[in-house]
Structures are given as C-alpha cells and as structure tokens.
C-alpha cells in the first residue's frame, strides 16, 4: 500500500548548540597563553603549547578560575541554575587534533542548567528559548586540510597531509545547548546574535566569528501534518560547525526544504538511530551528509581522576553576579524608559555590542561637554535620532556599521551642540555628518570652513527673503491672505537660495512680520 504523503502544514523545529571560546588569558587546564585572548590572536602556530596540551606523561591539568567564573557569569545572564557541585569527565576518542586521546568536558553534571534567553523575534514580538545546559570543556587543536594558501597548488595533492596547529587546544570552550524552541530560521539567527551579544556585553569572548570564537550547530527537523491530520516528525539532522549567521540561516532553511522532500520520497521518520550529521557547503548553499567519525558515539565518558570537582558556594556565585554589567535587554528597557525611544529604535541600538557602546559614548561625551540645559532624556533621544537618521543612512550607503563610520563621539556631541544652539540647519547638519565621517577636524571648524554655519545675520537673511518673495509672488500673496501653508514654498526657495544656510525659523518670523503684522 502506498502511503499518502500529502502535506497540509510543515513546521520547522530547531534547537541550537553553541560553542563559545572564552577569552581568558591562559588555557582551561594549563598556563600557556590562550589564543582566543586578543593578545594572542595571531600567535605563530604551535607556540602556545605546554605539556598538558601535548598530553605528555606526568602532566596534570589544573582548572582556570577565570574560565569557571566567566562560565558562571554567562549562566547567570541566561537565567540558569548554577550547579553547587559539578565535575569533569573524559570524552575519549583518537583524533590528531587531540594529543591526549580525550577531551576534558562535563557529561552528567554541567556547571549551568535550566535557563532561558528572551529576545525580540523577527516578527517584533518577544520570545523565549529555554537553555538546557551550559557546560565547560576544552577546545581541540586546529586541523587544516586545505593547504593551498601556504603552498603552491602543485604541492597540495603531492603532500597528502593534514596539518595540525595546537595553539587552540585547551582554549576554554563553553557549550550552550537549547531546547528545540525555535520555529523559524530568522529567529534562530536573531537568537544566536543575541547570545553573542550577551557574551560580548559580559566580556567573556572576543566573539569574532571569522576567528571561530563562536560556532553554531543547529539540530533541525520538521513536524509535518498530513492531509489526513497525522503528525510526523522527520529525522533530526545536526549541522556541524557553522561560523557565520549567514551559514546558520542558509543551513536551517536548506534542511527544512530537504527534509520535507526526503519525507515525501522515503517516508522516513524520527526514531532511534535516525539522527545524522551534515556539514554546510556555503558555495553550493546545501548541507552535505558527513561521514561520521568512526565510533563517534562510543566516547566512554568517565569522571576525570586528575581534576577535583567544582563546588560553587552561594557566596562565590553572588560575588560573580555583582560583576554582571548592564545586559542588552536591560539597556533596551532603559532606552525606552529614560530616552523615550521606540522599541524598534532601542532594539537597533542594542543588537550589536560595539554600536551600543558607541551610542553610550556619544551620550557620555555630550553630557561631559554640554553647557546647555539639555536633560539626560533629551540628550539620549537626540543622539539616537542623529545616529538612526544621518548615521543609518551613511552606514547603509557605505555598507558599514554605525560605530564604524569614522565619526568620533566627540564630533557627534559637537554636532548636536551646534544643532541645539541653532548654529546649523538640519540639512546642513546632515551634510556636516558626512564630512565628519571623513575628517578629523572638530565640527565647528569644519562647518565654518565648508560654509555650513546657519546665517542668522539679518541683512543677508533680508536679501534672501526679498529674492524669494519676488520669485514666488503667488505664494507671498496667499500667505499674506492668511494661507499658512503657503509659507513652506517661500522658505523652500530661501533654503535653495542660501544653500541650506538660512535659519528657517528666523526667516519665517521675519516673513510673518513683513507680510502680516503691518
């Protein structure tokens, strides 16, 4: 009997495993410098290696306090419970990137568990992903199979080798595992971005994707409802080692379509032994079945006898909790409450750590400099407006991030002061913003030398007004006759004549006096 495989609805179901390289100074279990710390990003291969990393006889691991505290901090930020007692286990497998023959990890007693992270989904609504656990382990060495960058292409095949750099071996690695709560690829990406953001706010990782500081592994399947109302779950696929958000989105979307098609063709459903592992081929935009490491699931975990357990007292936990800075969510709320920003604007200014800090620096700078009586709320709102209008426009045109446009917070503060003092008009301010992106000069000097300062000088204004009234006799008559909206046309002409330098408000006042008050 041929089964009816007609699909009524298909719902994506995604859980994430996220690996975060912690940027401690030294390694997880030994004292060599950590390649994930900014001081050592570009260390020469195999120069951050010690006897523990090499697995030399007699070498003993010792836990790094900072790695444990960073992990607890992430756990607390994700609303996790922190285990009072956790321990280390050996995950045994032979592979050239792991000289010891086992990876030290946490198996049944992870450091952090049962948390959640709230974020604003693609539909603008808040949603929550549950965190199952976050456990600490050590990263492995780095294997390169593609050696064409170091050798002439003629050599690649001749060499027939894989090359090992052990600098990364022993870097503290926090593995965060979520429930399969995500239903859309876009939401999965936003969740991953938010998680990265939280980790960067906590300053526990460089978070540089290109350097592999964060690696994402979505577990994907599809819940299909057939025409007959039957619910079917497709076999779960784990996509390994994605190191860009684009790859996360692409891999999940591809799996969604592929699994539906696969079910239509084969009828395969989720079940024991059905889970498979795939890799992402970015060039072709497809996932590819990976040959699994032989006996990949026979890791023979057992407690590591070399390492004593970790006991986290309430006191220790509290002292770590006090080091947690303002997190993106809290910052967002503050922007809405204190600066009166819309939810959407507050979100834009907090979804990237660098952008958010830049925004904060601009406000700080304005507060330090200003002699006017601007309130804190007004300052926040004004800086936000400038960055989200002129800044966003420029960022968009130049494909850059807001914080990376070349305008210093001091220049932003100067520009805003000029606007507040009405020494520059709004369109000239836009122009000045662009100039500031390209020049180091202070805003007033630059505006002056480029002739952008607002003209309030009455003789000059009078002359423009006279010309404008002459050019627009009809509008002048209408305005004189009581039609307020005719003024816009006259002011527009004045702005054109003055190249945007005329002070629109002074001009309006002047015209009202001339045409109406006598």
């Amino acid at each position, binding site marked *: 009997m041929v089964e009816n495989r007609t699909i009524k609805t298909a719902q994506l179901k995604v859980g994430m495993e996220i690996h975060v390289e912690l940027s401690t100074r030294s390694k997880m279990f030994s004292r060599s410098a950590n390649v994930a710390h900014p001081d050592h990003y570009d260390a020469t291969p195999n120069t951050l290696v010690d006897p523990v990393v090499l697995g030399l006889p007699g070498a003993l691991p010792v836990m790094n306090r900072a790695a444990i505290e960073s992990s607890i901090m992430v756990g607390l930020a994700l609303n996790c419970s922190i285990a009072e007692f956790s321990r280390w286990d050996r995950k045994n497998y032979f592979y050239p990137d792991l000289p010891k023959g086992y990876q030290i990890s946490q198996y049944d007693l992870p450091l952090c568990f049962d948390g959640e992270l709230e974020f604003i989904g693609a539909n603008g609504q808040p949603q929550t992903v549950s965190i199952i656990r976050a456990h600490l382990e050590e990263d492995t060495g780095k294997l390169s199979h593609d050696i064409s960058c170091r050798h002439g292409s003629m050599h690649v095949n001749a060499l027939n080798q*894989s090359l090992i750099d052990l600098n990364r071996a022993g870097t503290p690695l926090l593995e965060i595992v979520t429930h399969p709560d995500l239903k859309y690829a876009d939401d999965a990406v936003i969740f991953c971005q938010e998680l990265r953001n939280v980790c960067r706010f906590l300053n526990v990782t460089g978070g540089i994707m290109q350097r592999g500081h964060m690696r994402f592994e979505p577990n994907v399947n599809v819940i299909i409802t057939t025409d007959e109302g039957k619910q079917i779950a497709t076999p779960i696929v784990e996509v390994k080692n994605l190191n860009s958000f684009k790859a996360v989105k692409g891999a999940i979307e591809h799996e969604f379509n592929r699994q539906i098609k696969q079910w239509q063709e084969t009828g395969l459903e989720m079940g024991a032994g059905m889970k498979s592992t795939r890799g992402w081929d970015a060039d072709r935009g497809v996932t590819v079945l990976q040959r699994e490491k032989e006996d990949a699931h026979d890791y023979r975990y057992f407690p590591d006898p070399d390492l004593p357990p970790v006991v986290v007292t309430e006191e220790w936990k509290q002292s770590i909790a006090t080091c947690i800075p303002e997190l993106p969510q809290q910052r967002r709320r503050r922007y809405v409450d204190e600066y009166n920003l819309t939810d959407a604007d507050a979100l834009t200014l907090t979804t990237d750590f660098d952008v958010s800090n830049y925004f904060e620096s601009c406000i700080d700078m304005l507060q330090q400099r200003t002699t006017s009586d601007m309130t804190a709320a007004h300052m926040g709102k004004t800086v936000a407006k400038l960055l989200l209008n002129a800044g966003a426009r420029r960022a968009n045109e130049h494909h850059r991030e807001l914080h990376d446009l070349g305008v210093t917070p001091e220049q932003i503060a100067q520009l805003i002061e000029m606007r507040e003092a009405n020494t520059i008009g709004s369109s000239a301010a836009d122009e000045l913003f662009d100039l500031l992106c390209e020049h180091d000069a202070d805003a007033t000097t630059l505006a002056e030398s480029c002739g952008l300062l607002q003209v309030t000088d009455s003789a000059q204004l009078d002359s423009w007004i006279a010309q404008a009234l002459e050019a627009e006799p009809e509008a002048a008559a209408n305005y004189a006759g009581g039609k307020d909206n005719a003024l816009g046309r006259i002011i527009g002409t004045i702005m054109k004549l003055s190249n945007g330098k005329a002070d629109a408000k002074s001009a309006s006042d002047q015209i009202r006096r001339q045409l109406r008050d006598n």
Partner: protein
Amino acid sequence: MTDRFTKDDIQHIARLARLQLDDEQIEQYRLQLGAVLEHVQMLSQLDLDGVEPLSHPIELNNRLNDDSPQASLQLDDVLRNAPQLEGQFLAVPRILGESEDA
C-alpha cells in the same frame, strides 16, 4: 568464564584504541580482558544500597589556578616528538570528510 568478551568486542575495542591485532592477539586479549573483568566483578558482591557514587577518593574541591599565563614550550620542543612536520605544523596523513570535533 572465558566468554565475557566476544571476538567482535575485542575488535571494537582495538579499533577505538587504533590498534591493529591479528587473530592470535585477539584471542589472547579476549582471555586476558575477560580475566580482568572477572576480577573487578568481585565488587558487585558488595551491598551498595544507599551508597552515593564516588568519583574522587580524596575530598578535595576547587583547586584553581589564577588566570595568568606562563611560558609555553619552545617550538622545537613541541615539534620534537612528531614523526612528521610541515614547516611549523605537525603533519599527519590527510584527513578528509570528517569534521573537527569540539
């Protein structure tokens, strides 16, 4: 008694340890490992009801290092025991189609 392990078991364990064994060695280890397991099996005679599993015999927790790096090994020393090198890298037979694990 001597059948605690099958030939397949031994082959599986040997593969995990990346050991290549001939038939004679497989039989030898099958018997030896069986004897070891049998010896350890004596523990199952103990009444362990209500006894918490113990992973470490010494009551010692939180032996922590401060996060300050110390000198790494000299590159020459790191590479000294490697059977094959390629520049500053350790070289192994080409591995393809398998992912890095973490």
